[in-house]
């Protein structure tokens, strides 16, 4: 059996590589590059599903208040009943948190299905993975949806510096990378409790430098990391502490001067005076403007749009655009759209499970997820939403997603997605619409010979043509 070399039209590339996958009602007309840029004005920053989410901080705070009350009761009664109450309280909290998480995942998928700006929506997913949190514990799970809504979406068409500041200051990030526990060893807060030794945690400082801005091996040292960690002390979340500190609003970040390590800091050769919250803020902003950051971001963007091995010329062009525009993201996107490398006429990226699920649902004509459980679906596909398990986020290369077991999962899920449509949709007509210029003869042939219409749809979704963009 021979395989025809696929030749994607620019419209197909705009829909499937830049966008989130073609829909049956997508009509290819006009200049695809122009259409991508036009999407910037159609992006919905705060879609209804996201806007309706409960405040994570309130959920977390209720739990903590209840916990403290329980502890008081337990001290007064010394009773065993109190322990049972506490356990029940923890279970309620976990259920609340998981309901909130599932609702947030539904909101994310709904937004990806309904959007008038699929390219910008894709960039939300890209940046959310760049500045990722991982829902490894209940508190981060509670905040994950709010993180994407409040720290990523409003800045996706803004400046990189603003997004970095919003992401690093968000409660989800401060909790995930242990910043809320970091205390200046010589700060008043540490001096207050000399018996209970608390101090620095350099996790957030290191990951900001290594993963979010400069990139690994870009010239900073362990001493720079530690200095930056000292500068970051005091950055925390309001309303999560004990005593008076517990009274604030847990949905906002806070600066507590009493935890801040006194003194000026020297990071990457530059001196930052003791300015409280501004000390780490200034350092972070400086990082975002450094050439290493421009190259780091440019490399990730190039890999996402032009293939697992990012073309050096594209990386250089994007880095240049990033530097010249001071990290103005629409300017960088325009450079990307105008570059030739992302318009290669053969499929160059293997879809991640998230990309595959969203493009499948769009391709089958869904405009909302309804009662499909997207969170559970993504877990079965090996990419639990907002849970990469490590601060580097999900990998963006084919080898991470094309494993033998992962393929089998997609076939099983494709069958499940296609089944409810029964005989309602004809894959023989749909496939060439969704894959203009890239549907191979072999795929068309196997679809036509499938034993059932639903089987044909499932086959379309897992065809080599549809697995790639």
């Amino acid at each position, binding site marked *: 059996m021979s395989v025809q070399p696929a030749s994607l039209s620019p419209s197909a590339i705009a829909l499937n590589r830049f966008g989130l996958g073609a829909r049956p009602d997508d009509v290819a007309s006009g200049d695809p590059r122009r259409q991508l840029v036009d999407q910037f004005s159609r992006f919905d920053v705060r879609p209804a599903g996201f806007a309706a989410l409960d405040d994570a901080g309130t959920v977390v705070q209720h739990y903590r208040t209840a916990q403290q009350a329980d502890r008081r009761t337990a001290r007064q009664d010394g009773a065993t009943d109190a322990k049972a109450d506490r356990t029940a309280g923890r279970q309620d909290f976990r259920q609340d948190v998981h309901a909130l998480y599932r609702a947030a995942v539904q909101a994310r998928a709904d937004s990806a299905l309904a959007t008038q700006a699929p390219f910008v929506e894709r960039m939300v997913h890209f940046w959310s993975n760049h500045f990722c949190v991982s829902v490894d514990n209940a508190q981060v799970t509670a905040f994950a949806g709010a993180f994407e809504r409040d720290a990523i979406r409003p800045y996706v068409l803004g400046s990189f510096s603003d997004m970095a500041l919003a992401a690093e200051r968000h409660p989800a990030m401060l909790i995930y990378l242990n910043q809320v526990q*970091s205390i200046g060893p010589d700060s008043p807060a540490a001096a207050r409790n000399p018996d209970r030794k608390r101090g620095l*945690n350099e996790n957030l400082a290191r990951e900001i430098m290594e993963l979010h801005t400069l990139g690994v091996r870009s010239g900073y040292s362990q001493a720079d990391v530690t200095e930056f960690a000292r500068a970051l002390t005091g950055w925390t979340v309001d309303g999560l502490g004990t005593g008076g500190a517990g009274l604030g609003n847990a949905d906002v970040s806070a600066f507590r001067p009493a935890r801040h390590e006194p003194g000026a800091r020297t990071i990457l050769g530059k001196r930052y005076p003791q300015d409280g919250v501004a000390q780490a803020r200034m350092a972070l902003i400086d990082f975002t403007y450094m050439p290493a950051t421009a190259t780091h971001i440019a490399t990730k963007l190039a890999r996402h749009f032009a293939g697992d091995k990012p073309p050096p010329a594209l990386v250089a062009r994007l880095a240049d655009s990033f530097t010249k525009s001071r990290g103005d993201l629409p300017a960088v996107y325009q450079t990307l759209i105008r570059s030739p490398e992302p318009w290669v006429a053969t499929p160059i990226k293997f879809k991640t499970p998230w990309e595959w699920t969203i493009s499948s649902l769009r391709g089958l004509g869904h405009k909302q997820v309804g009662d499909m459980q997207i969170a559970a679906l993504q877990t079965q596909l090996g990419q639990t939403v907002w849970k990469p398990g490590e601060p580097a986020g999900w990998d963006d290369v084919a*080898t991470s997603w094309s494993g033998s077991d992962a393929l089998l999962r997609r076939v099983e899920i494709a069958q499940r997605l296609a089944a409810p449509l029964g005989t309602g949709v004809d894959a023989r007509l749909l496939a060439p619409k969704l894959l203009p210029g890239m549907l191979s003869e072999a795929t068309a042939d196997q679809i036509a010979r499938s034993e059932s219409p639903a089987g044909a749809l499932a086959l379309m979704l897992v065809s080599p043509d549809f697995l790639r963009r």
Partner: protein
Amino acid sequence: MIARRQFLSAAALGAGALFVAPGLALATVPTDRRFVFIIQRGAADGLDILRPTGDPAFSSLRTSLVGDGDAGTRLDGMFTLHPSLVEVGKMYGQGQALFVHAVASPYRDRSHFDGQNVLETGGLQPYAMRDGWLNRLVALMPRLSGEAIAIAATVPTALRGSIEVASFAPSALPHAADDLMTRVGALYDADPQLHPAWAAALETKGLANDVGAGQDPASLGRLTASFLTKPNGPRIAMLETLGWDTHSAQKGRLANQLKGLDAMLAAMRDGLGLQWANTTVLIATEFGRTVAVNGTGGTDHGTGSVATLVGGAVRGGRVIADWPGLAPSMLYQARDLRPTSALDALIAGVAAEGLALDPERVGRSLFSQATGGRPMAGFIRT
């Protein structure tokens, strides 16, 4: 509908005779030895897993983590095993567990991802080599399909390379219809990227039919054992464990992590039955953690850590350590356990002896960039 097992065999044969006929398979299985690599992603704290309680500096540095509860198994005058590792402690008592302490890969910075890349590729620098040492090890074995398997949805870096290996993770989804499976196979046949992965998927699915699906550590241990005991199944397996990055609340978190690891190893031992005697399991991490406890009851990224060997083939009941000491002047960069053993020399020696291959040849193939450092020896019963 034909039976699933038959269908899969037929499909696989059609795709290039990937199934070896059962009678023949028994005769041509190239080795009785089994080798398992368990990676601990996130930098596991060797000083807490195998505690140097005999070092005069240890107790003052680590009181808050060690506490004064259950003390764990005391191995010798110097080292005490973490109390969660009950089954591993028993293995040690039976001469089936061995530890190499103060060990590190050539990597000396503190990025998880770079460190794991060095550990998995066997290069001297991150991203200096493209394929993984475990894949190169498979390439040294006599050829047979299904020689290695990753117990994960995708293949980790250590197992990536020129030899196609299978991956498997338990799934609760209903099976796909035979017609769909056949047509998918026909389409992937012509695709250089998808064909080998699909062939491996079918073969693995066939092997895993009779294993209960569970994703807890003990189930994964049992699952691994079930693959390794199939007459024509894989002989090399890799498992990934996450969650070792204990920047805070290490005491409770590490206890849970190690409980899981202990259960996984015990289930593997029990599942392997008689084959346990031919098995070597290597457990290693990308680097260790700081000697001092940080301000949040945890430890930060460090350097030297511990590597563990268990298995009936292991000449165990020993701790191998050229102990550098924990006095401030002895620490690496004044904060970390100073490495005195090379993890690559350890891996080369263990892999070679565990699979009865020539250590020099294994060393050259797996760690071609390493300068000097002959494979370590004497790990396996002969």
